[in-house]
């Protein structure tokens, strides 16, 4: 019987076993928008 106060390592183990998500490494350096149709822009 495990005491409720007994610390577990389940979460840590799960974290170690989880596949590593690829890091987003590409920088978003440019972002283009069209302002055609915006109110007040001529």
């Amino acid at each position, binding site marked *: 019987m495990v005491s409720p106060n007994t610390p577990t390592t389940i979460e840590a183990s799960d974290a170690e076993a989880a596949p590593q998500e690829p890091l987003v490494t*590409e*920088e978003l*350096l*440019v*972002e*283009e*928008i*069209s302002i055609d149709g915006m109110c007040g822009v001529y």
Partner: protein
Amino acid sequence: MSDLDCSRRYRLDPDVALRPEPFGALAYHYGSRRLTFLRSPLLAELVRHLEEHASIDDALAASVPEERHGAFRHALGALADSRFICAC
């Protein structure tokens, strides 16, 4: 698909105005009426002075850390595709 030729000299299109911003710059193309956010002060400076360098590669080598060359080439390719910069 970008048609950027990194061995050639490029310049800011004459129809483009750059406005400095804390995040980099706003670029507005008066011909296409497109607005582009340049999200890096380093990229904004690079684009502003692009014509001073014999090629894109020379411009990158002069001012951009090597580990960022790929991202900057990608960004310059997007700017070339949308005619914000053009080959001289």
